[in-house]
């Protein structure tokens, strides 16, 4: 019970690489915790700058970082904790043009993004490059987290959510609010799942979706299955390359 990393697992982590999509609420604990565990190379992908309204939950960023690129602010904190980590900065929008090439350079992708277009793009690029993905999302007091890896028999994001919600039907964090501690819980769980995928130890959330409510302090587990009809990881896939995700999601960013 409660075993720490073994020396061989630490060596594996030092040789491994992770691409973190988003250095916001979810990305904050993930960046700290991957670095603390000794992951060798961490790519930070986020084109945003730090805003005052982020600081209530994005603990990777300080008040003096307001206006600074989040990837730069994040890299500074990682260096303070563990200077040996190779941090690669990608202060760009993730697009259909750059995603495949970027994903191919990392062992694992962790999706800490906050919009549907990016989630479908991350999913498709992970399936096409064979990369496992840790997925998490937050809303007010609720969170969800799972691992998607069709390569090892589990479902992908499209198996679970074949179509995006109608544009405007799901309000953003700015519109709906979010309790500041929520991404800390979901992001920490995501980091732990990432470390398990990298070391190959333990039972990951592949095929299991955790549903969290902070007000009740309740975690429910739902079994999720791969869909044979999935257009990207199913039996006869129809998606063989990345598509226009803004269009797919109705042109709404959040």
């Amino acid at each position, binding site marked *: *019970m*409660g*075993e*720490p*990393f073994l020396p061989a697992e630490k060596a594996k982590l030092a040789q491994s690489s992770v691409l973190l999509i988003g250095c916001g609420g979810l990305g904050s*604990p993930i960046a*700290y*915790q*991957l670095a*603390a*565990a*000794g992951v060798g190379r961490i790519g930070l992908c986020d084109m945003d700058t730090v805003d*005052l*309204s982020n*600081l*209530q*939950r*994005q*603990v990777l*960023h*300080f*008040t*003096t970082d307001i206006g600074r690129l989040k990837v730069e602010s994040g890299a500074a904190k990682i260096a*303070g*904790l*563990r200077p040996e980590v190779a941090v690669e900065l990608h202060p760009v929008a993730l697009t259909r043009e750059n995603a495949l090439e970027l994903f191919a350079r990392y062992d694992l992708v962790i999706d800490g993004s906050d919009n549907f277009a990016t989630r479908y793009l991350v999913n498709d690029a992970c399936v096409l490059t064979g990369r496992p993905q840790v997925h998490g999302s937050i809303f*007010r*007091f609720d969170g969800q987290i799972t691992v998607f890896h069709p390569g090892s028999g589990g479902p992908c994001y499209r198996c679970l959510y074949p179509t995006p919600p109608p544009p405007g039907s799901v309000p953003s*964090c*700015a*519109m*709906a*609010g*979010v*309790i*500041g*501690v*929520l991404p*800390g*819980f979901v*992001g*920490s*769980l995501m*980091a*732990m*799942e990432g*470390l*398990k995928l990298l070391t190959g130890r*333990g*039972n*990951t*959330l592949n095929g*299991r979706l*955790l549903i969290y409510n*902070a*007000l*009740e*302090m309740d*975690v429910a*587990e739902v079994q999720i299955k791969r869909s044979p009809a999935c257009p990207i990881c199913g039996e006869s896939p129809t998606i063989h390359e990345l598509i226009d995700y803004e269009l797919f999601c109705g042109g709404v960013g959040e």
Partner: protein
Amino acid sequence: MSLTEQEILRYSRHIILPEVGGRGQKRLKAASVLVAGLGPTGSAAALYLAAAGIGRITLWDPGILTPADLEGAVAHDRSRVGLPRARSAREPLAAINPEAEILVLDRESDVAAAIPEYQVVVATAGDWRDLQREALRHGVDAVFAATHGSMGSAFVYKPGHPCLACIPAEKALAAGLRPEGEGYAIAAAAGVIGVVAATEAVKLILGIGSPLTDRLFSYEGWDARFRESPLSRRHGCELCGVE
């Protein structure tokens, strides 16, 4: 206590939530929380309490920051190795939230005496029974939380509910609520439990949701399993004394 224009912007994602609102944010600002232990669990909790807008946070830890601490505890920085752990953790908290008052206690004897001043105690280390006894005596709510390796637990004490000493010894030991406090923990696992502790503190201050009273909440990281086991007051408990 009112909120400045800057604070309204800073906490806008909270204020828009009906469960928090401007009133709740003012409550958080007026609140004072003691975080006992700035190891893996306490440092995660402390970061989120500062970000959430708790007005006064006191950090207690008599230990000195070592390089090994940096593997599990994320509020620290290599440049501060050799400093008292509480002082090291103060830096990111103050940097996240310069408006909050962040105090440091770094002597073994300081902690119990300080308890009556706080609305909530987040206990992740120290003499647990001492902390529980003082919380009992002064009617202060307390969140107990600890992580060992990949496994951690948390529960909430409120007056009238089961206390630390009501939990059977083997159960407390298995949950990691051990007299010697935390050892090594994986930062991600401690992050889960530390944030649970911070979440419970925020809920207690706001008076929202269902607190973790009467139940012990546990997480095991390698299996990604959560467990909840019921707690009840023990007759003849030497601390909370139900006859």
